[in-house]
C-alpha cells in the first residue's frame, strides 16, 4: 500500500548493517537449547495477532577465507532455492498464500531467514524451516544459479550506482587482515573460481543446528512452542562447528586515504574510524560520540558545516557495530564550489574539539533522551524485536547487553566520552575516501588514485 519513496542514502549498505542500539523491556526472553545444539529464543507478546520467526546462522562474510570471498552469499542463495519436498518458490508461496511475508539476509557476521505471519500460521513456518534446515542440499546447478544471481545484483546495486562502490572501498581501505575487508558479495574473480566441493563444504560446516538459533517473537504460547520446536528440529543431525580462527586486525599505523573519481557534480568525503566490538564496554561512550556529532540538526557537524560554514549540503554517518571491531563513519556532501578536502578538515576539527571540551550536561542529556526514544522506535514490531535478539545473541554473545543498553547509555559520563575520543578518533585509526567529480581528461568512471 505504501507509495514509492525515494531514499537518498549514500552509504546504504553500511546503514543496513546497523541495528538499533537499544534494549526493550517487553516480556522476558526465554532460552531453550535442544540436544543437537540448536538454540530457541522466545518472547511471548499478545499485543497483536502476529508472530515473527527468524532462523539465524552464525556465519557471515567474515567466515570466508582469502580466495573464497562471496562463498557465504552463494550459500545464502542456495538456502532459498528449496528442498526436494518444497522446491524453489514453494516456501514463499505457502507463507504469502497464508498472508505472511518472508525475510532473508546475509551480512558480515550473520545470515538469517524467516517470516512474519499471522499467529495461526506459526506451525506452518516452523515446519517449513525444519525442512529447510534439514533438507537443503548443495548441487552444482544451484551453485551456478546462485552465482549468476549475485553477478546480476552486483551489476545493479554496486557497479551501476553512483555511490555503489563507496562501502566496498572504505572497508577494504580500513581493514588489511580481517575479513571485514572484503565485500559481502565477494570479489567477482573469487566467485568465478569457487569449486563445487568448496561450496558444499562451507555450507555443511556452517548451515546446521549447532550453529543456529531460532527466534520467535509475538503471539504464541511458550510451553507449546518449545514442544513443537523440539518435535520438529531436535532430530536434525548436527555436528560440532569448529571454532573459527580469531583474526585480529593489526593496529593501524597511520591514516589511509583514497580518492575516487566518478561522474558526480557533488564532491563527497567519507571518514571512518575503527571502533570496539559491540560487546566491548567502550561501545557506549563511542555511541555518544557519534550522536554528538551526527544527531539531527543540532548535531555538531550539521551545525558547523551546514548551518554556520555552509560548506556542506548534507551530513550523516553510521555506527557499523559488529562482532569484531567495526567502524564509525561520517560523511559530508559538499556545497557548490566547496571541496571535499574542506569538508574533511572541518569534520576533523569538530572531532578534535570532542577530545578536550566536555559535553555540557544539557547536550549529554539530549543524547541520552534520544537513546531512549530510538530504543522504543526500534522495538515496536515483533519483527524488529526478533532481529535484535538474533543480532545480539550472536554478535554480543549474550542478551544481557541488549537488555541494559538504555541503562548503560544513561550512565555514560562526559569524561568517558573525552577518553573514548582520544582513544578511537585519532588519525592513525582513520581511513578517508574522497569522491571527486571526474572531468573529461580524468580516468574512466570508478577509477581511483591512491
Amino acid at each position, binding site marked *: *500500500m*505504501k*507509495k*514509492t*519513496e*525515494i531514499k*537518498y542514502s*549514500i552509504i546504504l549498505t553500511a546503514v543496513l548493517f546497523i541495528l538499533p542500539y537499544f534494549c526493550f523491556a517487553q516480556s522476558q526472553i526465554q532460552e531453550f537449547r535442544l540436544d543437537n545444539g540448536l538454540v530457541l529464543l522466545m518472547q511471548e507478546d499478545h*499485543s*497483536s495477532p*502476529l508472530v515473527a520467526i527468524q532462523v539465524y546462522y552464525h556465519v557471515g562474510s567474515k567466515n570466508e577465507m582469502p580466495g573464497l570471498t562471496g562463498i557465504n552469499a552463494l550459500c545464502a542463495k542456495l538456502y532459498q532455492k528449496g528442498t526436494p*519436498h518444497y522446491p*524453489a518458490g514453494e516456501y*514463499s*508461496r505457502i507463507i*504469502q*498464500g*497464508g*498472508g505472511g511475508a*518472508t525475510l532473508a539476509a546475509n551480512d558480515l557476521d550473520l545470515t538469517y531467514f524467516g517470516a512474519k505471519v499471522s499467529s*495461526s500460521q506459526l*506451525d*506452518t513456518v516452523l*515446519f517449513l524451516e*525444519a525442512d529447510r534446515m534439514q533438507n537443503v542440499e548443495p548441487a552444482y546447478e544451484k551453485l551456478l544459479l546462485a552465482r*549468476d*544471481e549475485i553477478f*546480476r*545484483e552486483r*551489476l*545493479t*546495486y554496486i*557497479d*551501476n*550506482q553512483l555511490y555503489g562502490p563507496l562501502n566496498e572501498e572504505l572497508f577494504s581501505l580500513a581493514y588489511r587482515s580481517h575479513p571485514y575487508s572484503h565485500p559481502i558479495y565477494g570479489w567477482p574473480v573469487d566467485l568465478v573460481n569457487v569449486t563445487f566441493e568448496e561450496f558444499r563444504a562451507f555450507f555443511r560446516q556452517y548451515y546446521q543446528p549447532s550453529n543456529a538459533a531460532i527466534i520467535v517473537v509475538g503471539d504464541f504460547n511458550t510451553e507449546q512452542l518449545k514442544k513443537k520446536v523440539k518435535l*520438529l528440529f531436535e*532430530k536434525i543431525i548436527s555436528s560440532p562447528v569448529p571454532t573459527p580462527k580469531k583474526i585480529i586486525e593489526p593496529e593501524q599505523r597511520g591514516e589511509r586515504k583514497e580518492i575516487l573519481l566518478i561522474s558526480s557534480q557533488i564532491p563527497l568525503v567519507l571518514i571512518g574510524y575503527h571502533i570496539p566490538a559491540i560487546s566491548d564496554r567502550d561501545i557506549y561512550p563511542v555511541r555518544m560520540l557519534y550522536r554528538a556529532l551526527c*544527531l*539531527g*540538526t*543540532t548535531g555538531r557537524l550539521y551545525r558547523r558545516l*551546514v548551518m554556520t560554514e555552509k560548506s556542506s*549540503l*548534507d551530513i550523516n554517518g553510521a555506527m557499523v557495530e559488529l562482532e569484531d571491531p567495526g567502524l564509525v563513519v561520517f560523511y559530508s*556532501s559538499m556545497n*557548490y564550489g566547496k571541496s571535499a578536502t574542506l569538508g574533511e578538515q572541518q569534520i576533523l576539527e569538530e572531532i578534535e574539539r570532542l577530545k578536550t571540551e566536555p559535553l555540557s550536561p*544539557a547536550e549529554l*542529556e*539530549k543524547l*541520552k*533522551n*534520544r537513546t531512549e*526514544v*530510538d530504543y*522504543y*522506535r526500534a*522495538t*515496536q*514490531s515483533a519483527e524488529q524485536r526478533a532481529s535484535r535478539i538474533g543480532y545480539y545473541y550472536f554478535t554480543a554473545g549474550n542478551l544481557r547487553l541488549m537488555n541494559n543498553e538504555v541503562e548503560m547509555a544513561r550512565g555514560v559520563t562526559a569524561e568517558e566520552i573525552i577518553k573514548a575520543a582520544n582513544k578511537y578518533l585519532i588519525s592513525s585509526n582513520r581511513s578517508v575516501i574522497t569522491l571527486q567529480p571526474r572531468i573529461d581528461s580524468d580516468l574512466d*568512471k570508478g577509477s581511483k588514485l591512491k
Partner: protein
Amino acid sequence: MKRQFSTLVLISFAFVFVTITVLAGETQIIPPFERFALPNGLDVILVERHAQPTISYAMLIKSGSASDPAGMSGMHIVISRLLRAGTKSYPADRLAGIIDSIGGIIETKNFYKDEILLKGEFLSRDLSLVLKTLSEMMIYPTFTDEGVERLKARVASAVIRAQTIGEFIVREALYNRFYGDKGYGRSMVGEVEQIKNITRADVIKFHNDYFRPENAALILVGDYKPDKARQLITDLFSSWEQGRKIPPVSSAYSIPDSFRIAIMDNPQMSATNFIIGCPAVPPGSDDFAGLILLNYILGQGGGISRLDKDIINESGLATYIRSAIDWSKGNGMFYLSGNCPNYNTSEVIRRSLDILGELRDIRVSQKELDEAKIFLRGQYLSLFETSSGISEEMAFLLSSGVPVDYPTKLLATFEQIDPARLKSIAEKYLNPDHLTAVVYGPASLLKPSLSEIAPTEVVPGKQ
C-alpha cells in the same frame, strides 16, 4: 526419518488449510479510533495504544508534488523542510534544540503527488511541548531568507543525487509522458533549475494556499489520555485560519494510440532500468480492488508473482522485476519495472508484455486469486501493527482520498471478485495499445532489438 517426514507433510497441509480458513474470516485490520473535526475544519484522529510510553503523530497536508506551481517544481519539498527552520515563537536554533533535547524525532515524507507529511515520535511525557511546536510549525513558520536559500541548495543537491537512480528516472519519465508537465506530470523531487528560482514570497504564497486546516489532518497514536490530547489540540490548532478554495490538481492524461518504447540514452550503463505502464484509477473506484489483486498476481508478490517467477526464478534474466499501483487522489499509474543486464533488455520487455497479455486473455485460477486475497489481508494487518505504522497509513489513506477504514472495505470487496470479474478488469486496464515503456541505458546497444518489438525513439538521458 522419511516416514516421520511424510507425517509432517500431512500436518503441514493441515496447517495451511487451517491458516487459510482463519484468515478468510473477520480480522480487525484498523484499530479502534476516535475522529472529530475542529470548527476550522482540521480533521483529527486519535488512536490510543499503551504498550510503550511513546506517541507518534502524522500531520498531513493533502497536497504534494502535483500542486507545485508552474515553474516551481520541488516547492512542496522546500516548504516541508522549511517548517522546521523556525517559527514565530521559536527561532530555528531553538526549535531544533527543543525537539532534540527531549529526544524527539521529526521526519518529513514528501515524495508524493498528493501529500506532504510531517511525522513525529517522542516520549509520552512530552505531549504538550510537542503539540505546541507542531502547531507553531504549521501555523506560524517564519520562512527566513537565509532558511529559504539554505534549504533550496539542499533540496537541489538531493535532486541531483536522485537523478542518478535509474529506477527513479524511468518512473518520472513515464509519468511525464502520460500527464505532461502539469499536475501528476510534475516531478516528485523537483527540477534543479526551478528550485533555484523559488523565492521567499513564493514559499509564503504556497503556504497560504495549501497549509490550511481544511486541507490538513492530524493523527495521534500512542500512550496519552484522550481528554488531555483533545483539549491540547483544540487549544493549539483552533487559531489556524481557513483560506481560499484549494486550487484543483490536474490528473488528466492522454493515451497513445499504440504501444511505444522510449529509450533514455546513457552510454555508461551496463544494466538497464525499464518501466512499462499506463494510468489506472484512484482508490475508492469500483475497479480498484480488482487492480490491487491483479498487481499482486502480476508482480507485487515477490518470488511467487508471475513476473518474478518467469523472468527471474526460471530464466535468470533480470536482477529484480515488480509491479505497482500508485495510490493517488487522481488517476495514478499501474506499472511494472525492473533492472536487467543490457543484453537481456529486449527479451525481458518481450516476456513482460507476454505475461501482461496472459493476465488479460486467460482467467487466473481460483487458487491464485484466493492466495492473493489472503496475502493482502495479512499485509494490511502488518501495516497497522505499530503506532508509527498506524499514523502513517491513516494519513496516507486520507491523502489518497479514501476513508481511514478503507482497507476493511477493500477486503470485503475482494470477496466479491471472482476470476471472471478479474479478467474483465484486466481487459479494461491492460490494453497493450495503451501501454508505454521507458528504458534507461545505452541507446546504441538497445535500440536495434527494441525496435523489433515496437516503435522506438531515443530521448536524451541523465548522464
